[in-house]
């Protein structure tokens, strides 16, 4: 499959990918390398993984990272409650120590977490490691072993090798700087806010019933809004919410009713100071220029 076939296939699933992103994803698939996507919140990084899974017709395994995430929640954990019960039961049955040990540290007592699950699938799944920058440096170190060799070592069971290589998508939005070691192992693409044409294509792919005139106005408005000084510029998800809100309210033209426009801005502006800075006058000025 060439990269533009992948681009078309993703478009078929409602994801309009830029050329840069499509080539990078194509390489990630054909070279079997993890891909690191960076970009502001709301530019569709997580969605890439979901669509990729749909295109490849495979499972999506998602690991949401957070501070303090450790091996027990990301890779595997023993089922301690079952182990305790089993030991007590064994003591009553008079089972010997060695066989109890062999039994309670077997697969039956292992709780699979996303990373272990990902390397034990028959069909290569898409493994989404979301917001890797939220996890701390120690976790990156775990990840390096898995991304380099696709194997996991469990002291009691031995090393588990990957049945198939998962397609790994990592996303980051810059909570902290990632280590060079991790960046080296990944292909890299910076996902930016889409340009006007791309965003229009995304909007018409996601809301096919929208009128072209309103769609053009919405995209113009959002693109202009991103150039204002905002704490949090609206992403694509916000644009789609905005369009859905306007359609739900039956608005045909953005400049018709200032009050409605101002009310629907809650879908775009997500901090108090941003809402305060985009007053009705400012919104009207932007809408007027966008129209």
């Amino acid at each position, binding site marked *: 499959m060439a*990269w533009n076939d992948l681009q078309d296939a993703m478009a078929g699933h409602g994801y309009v990918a830029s050329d840069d992103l499509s080539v990078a994803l194509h390489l990630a698939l054909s070279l079997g390398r993890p891909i690191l996507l960076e970009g502001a919140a709301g530019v569709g990084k997580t969605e890439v993984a979901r669509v990729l899974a749909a295109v490849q017709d495979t499972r999506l395994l998602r690991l949401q990272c957070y501070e303090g995430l450790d091996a027990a929640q990301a890779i595997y954990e023993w089922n301690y409650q079952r182990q305790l019960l089993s030991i007590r039961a064994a003591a009553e049955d008079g089972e010997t120590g060695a066989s109890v040990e062999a039994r309670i540290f077997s697969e039956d007592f292992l709780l699979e977490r996303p990373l272990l699950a990902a390397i034990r699938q028959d069909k290569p799944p898409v493994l989404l490691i979301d917001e890797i920058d939220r996890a701390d440096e120690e976790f990156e170190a775990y990840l390096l072993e898995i991304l380099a060799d696709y194997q996991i070592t469990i002291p009691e069971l031995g090393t588990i090798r990957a049945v198939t290589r998962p397609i790994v998508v990592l996303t980051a939005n810059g909570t902290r700087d990632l280590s060079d070691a991790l960046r080296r192992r990944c292909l890299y*693409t910076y996902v930016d806010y889409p340009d006007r044409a791309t965003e229009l294509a995304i909007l018409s792919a996601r809301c096919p019933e929208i009128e072209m005139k309103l769609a053009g106005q919405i995209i113009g408005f959002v693109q202009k809004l991103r150039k204002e000084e905002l704490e949090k510029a609206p992403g694509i998800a916000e644009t789609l919410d905005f369009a859905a809100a306007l359609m739900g309210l039956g608005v045909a033209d953005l400049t018709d009713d200032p009050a409605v426009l101002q009310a629907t801005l809650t879908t775009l502006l997500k901090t108090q100071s941003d809402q305060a800075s985009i007053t009705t006058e400012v919104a009207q000025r932007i809408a007027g220029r966008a129209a």
Partner: protein
Amino acid sequence: MSRVTRFAARDPGPAARVSGFLAHLRENGLRLGVAETELALTALTQVDAAVPVQSKRALRAVCTGCREDADRFDDLFDSFWLNGGRVKQKIVPSKGETAKDHVHSSRVAQGAPATGAGEATAPDGGSGASEGDGLGKLMATEVTNLMKKDLRDLVRPEDILAAERVALRLGAALRDRRSRRRKAARKGDRLHFRRVIRQSLATGGQPFDLPKKHRPDRLRKIAAICDVSGSMSVYAQVFLAFLAGLMRADQTADAYLFHTRLVRITHALRDRDALRALARMSLMADGFAGGSKISHSIGRFADTHAKRFVDGRTVVLILSDGFDTDPPAAMSAALSRLRKRGCKVIWLNPLKGWRDYEATAQGMAAALPYIDLFKAANTLEELAGLEPELVRL
């Protein structure tokens, strides 16, 4: 006319060109290993490599690792592959290349023989032309250096070494006790379940021993922002040495300079060669010893870099005299935005304690409510003396 670079006839082939390109990227500061060359070649087989825009996309995905690199990549690619059809002669560096001055630049090594030579050519302690000539040359270099404000003349290697030691101690003083991750430990607040089960096996499932886990100490990150405006130039020597030392001692630290603009100098200062690091820094600090826009620069920092590098475990160290050309209100706005990242802010001011100081710097007064620690410091010794204060922070 094709813009594609014409390579010399003796060029051995595409593989050598690609490795030449990776060497070109390395020279320009991208961190790439041998494995990347292989990966780049494999990647090119997956796209239509004869189309420049496609191979550019493929190589960008392979060779870049962060946004700064990705932004610079287009220019680097064009300068190597698309330099307007001119013949590119040096593709494969010859094996016998010995002089790598750009890798191990060292002004000390170059300087020392020069003084010896000077003495040798003036054996008679002469009064005439030879001495005058030497003096004249010396004067000339001094003047150009002053004009360019070469930071290497402000900071000596010994200063950096001393600063490195101070920075190490300060970093150690900033210990944090808030790691969320737990580790096995003799004393702790939670049970270490894995060990409990493991050890209870020996006693038939009765957990007699209860191993614990606790939250270990974690170093805080330091982000240092240094003012190099005109009013600070007297203190620049100390602070720049401190920054250079800090970056060498602490791999997680982050450094910025500002006068009227803000520049990130972390990568430049991480250079293994201390003096070359300073040279790179002086190239970036264009406008050194000019005016100062403190609030504007701190605001820029809060809006851009702080979103990536500053979190609740970061200490932001501001080294500035607080003489700001922006209004005081801008200062409080900028600092309050920075504080929202959850960091601690320490302001080290060389002028604090001067008699008339309080009245003049209004920006400083506006900043005070947002600062966790406000101290005077203008020598390395005073910086080292901050250690007990940082422990208490």
